[in-house]
């Protein structure tokens, strides 16, 4: 009899405990983030969010790690259908601006955001908007080249200096490749964004005096001719720009890591990856952007964590954002991921980067130093809401010119028409 009562009591207590647990779980707000990784940032984010959840038991943050391609292609469709996540890490900063949620009514200190993220917030805003706060930069990126310094040393060729032109680099890279039988003297990611910096250096203005896209000018033509000539004379391998169609992105990071490339034009986001994959196997040396007659610029850019209008819990989203964007947390995030900070305060004070690798440290210094050399045209282009339309038209048509499907003159005409048509379609509605 006693055993029976005890069993009943235990069962009742168990039921109450289960009920309490269930109600606690029901009271917990779930925040979903769509996230992609270039390096270890997903791991660092999860670690930071675990600490946030420990302090805020009412919020559970789920990080859905997806392929970068899904962020570019699937997320916009999801958002258009009103079925997106609460937050997402995006790189088409202005292109998705219509879907961002303005967090300012939910933030406790909007002045902190303006002060530390101000210049970058404009990249996340629609043209007519000057006050919304949709998120912050998880990384600021700057495009620029990496040289395989070990190959230069082995070949006995000196690295071109800080004010070297693209032609100087092409000559030097070819010398190294020839002496050491390296298959690819120069590689550049197959991306309009990567091409834009060198084109601006050569004098491309990208916009008319009225601020409308005017991509094809002498500056762009100079760089386009250089690229096509390099493909024809073997300075660049056709496998990258010439082997796929349309706007398909291809990077040469693996070829560079395997020492198949002498000079690789990419950007600061490769630092963490190279520190892990190459380590000290050879000297991967970040060098300043080569110069043209107009500038020695790369392109700014980056990825932002933004709040989305599809969320049903803006307060919880704002709370997560406030935590992740705080100086202390971002310092740790940038430090552990080796990302160039997109936080003005941290840029000024400096981030304590968590690496002993002198090559990574040198690369971070080089790219951070390169920010000062960025052309205003590059900033304007990065902030333009339809910049991806421009990048994609350039890359797809140049790709066709490289494989001989059309002449460069035909490609220029197509680039202008493509941009005009795509922007008109976007402005038509939706």
């Amino acid at each position, binding site marked *: 009899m006693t055993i029976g009562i005890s069993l009943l009591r235990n069962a009742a207590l168990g039921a109450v405990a289960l009920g309490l647990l269930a109600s606690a779980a029901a009271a917990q707000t779930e925040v979903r983030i769509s996230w992609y990784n270039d390096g270890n940032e997903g791991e660092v984010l999860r670690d930071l969010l675990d600490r946030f959840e420990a302090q805020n038991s009412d919020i559970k943050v789920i990080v859905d790690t997806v392929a970068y391609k899904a962020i570019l*292609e699937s997320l916009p469709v999801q958002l258009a259908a009103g079925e997106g996540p609460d937050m997402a890490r995006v790189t088409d900063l202005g*292109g998705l601006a219509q879907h961002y949620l303005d967090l300012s009514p939910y933030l406790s200190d909007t002045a902190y955001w303006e002060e530390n993220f101000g210049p970058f917030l404009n990249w996340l805003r629609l043209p007519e908007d000057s006050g919304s706060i949709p998120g912050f930069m998880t990384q600021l990126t700057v495009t620029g080249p990496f040289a395989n310094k070990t190959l230069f040393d082995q070949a006995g060729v000196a690295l071109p200096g800080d004010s070297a032109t693209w032609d100087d680099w092409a000559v030097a890279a070819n010398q190294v490749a020839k002496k050491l039988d390296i298959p690819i003297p120069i590689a550049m990611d197959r991306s309009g964004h990567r091409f834009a910096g060198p084109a601006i250096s050569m004098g491309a203005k990208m916009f008319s005096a009225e601020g409308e896209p005017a991509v094809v000018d002498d500056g762009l033509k100079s760089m386009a001719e250089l690229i096509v000539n390099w493909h024809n004379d073997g300075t660049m391998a056709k*496998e990258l720009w010439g*082997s796929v169609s*349309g*706007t398909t992105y291809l990077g040469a990071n693996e070829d560079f890591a395997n020492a198949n490339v002498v000079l690789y034009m990419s950007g600061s986001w490769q630092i963490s990856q190279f520190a892990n994959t190459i380590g000290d196997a050879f000297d991967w040396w970040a060098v300043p952007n080569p110069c043209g007659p107009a500038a020695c610029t790369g392109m700014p850019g980056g990825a932002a964590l933004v709040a989305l209008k599809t969320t049903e819990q803006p307060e919880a989203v704002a709370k997560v954002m406030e935590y992740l964007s705080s100086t202390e947390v971002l310092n740790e995030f940038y430090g552990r991921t080796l990302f160039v900070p997109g936080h003005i305060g941290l840029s000024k004070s400096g981030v304590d980067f968590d690496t002993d690798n002198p090559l990574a440290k040198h690369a971070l210094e080089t790219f951070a130093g390169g920010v000062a050399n960025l052309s205003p045209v590059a900033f304007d282009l990065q902030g333009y809401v339809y910049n991806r339309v421009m990048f994609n038209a350039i890359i797809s048509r140049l790709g066709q010119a490289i494989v001989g499907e059309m002449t460069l003159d035909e490609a220029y005409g197509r680039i202008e028409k493509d941009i005009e048509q795509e922007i008109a*379609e976007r402005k038509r*509605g939706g």
Partner: protein
Amino acid sequence: MSTTEQTTSLRASAGELAAQPVWLIMRLLDIPMRFAQRVIGVKRMPYLFILPNLAFFGIFVVIPLFVNLVYSVTGGTGLFMSQRPYVGDEQYGHLLNCDSIIDVSTCREDRFWRGVYNTLTFVVLQVSFMIVFSLVTALVLNRKIRARGFFRSVFFFPVLLSPVVVALIWKWILLRDGLLNAFLTSLGGAKILFFVSPAWAMFWAIFVSVWAHMGFFTLILLAGLQAISPDLYEAAEMDGTSKSRTFWRITLPLLWPNMLVVIVLALIRAVQIFDEVFVLTGGGPGTATQFLVQYIYTTGFASPTQNFGLAAAASVLLGGALLVLTLAQLFVAQRKERT
């Protein structure tokens, strides 16, 4: 009762027992069926039976077809119909705007026409090779050769693989540092960059597609060959008919129904080619292997504007072409049957 009789009786009882649930279900179904029959009449009952399939077909084929048609006369970047302005036949006009369709560079949407010509080239070559190789393989496998079963499995095996897996396997073989180039260099040859040359890229797109699907068509033709009576071949042999005459006069005519199925299926599959080639070549170099379905996918989903209207219009045109192709084949088949 003998042991055999006991076993038979036991089996019968077990069978009856197993049939009980089925019988019960049938009895239960009988009630609504009888009711339906009373309400709609015996003559209309077949419609009731095909209703589930029809509903499935309607939801997943007819309605999307209609929606696609509506999208093709709208513009903008909105996903929902309410967000999309009506633009009439503008998207079709855009696709068909050419000074000369022989010269794609005169077409406003040159990539669409490049896709059309690439698809036509692919269809003609791939279907021809597919039929020839499937037929030859079926003829060989129909003969009494050693390890026939093994070879039949070998040829059918690629059919079981996912198109993406097939493409990735061949990509690894054909890359600059792939198996084939390693083999070529071991023989003292130079590396060939297969995906940089338009001709090589098209060749491998066709080769891989034939390799992956040939087993399926071989199987259909093999079934047809086995259905031909050996008496006919014996009679031909007794008459001293040559091997080639036997093939042209007996094998091929009697294999025609199966051959027609192979032609129809191979044609439709070739026009719809996408996944294998997309993974293998990405449509490149340039647009050398960008086919019509990839153009539709890229325009609708992979471009920054996600131009659903233009993609929908292109898919309506592709659907129209497929319809014409199917009707032509039906016409040919019916004429052949009549003769």
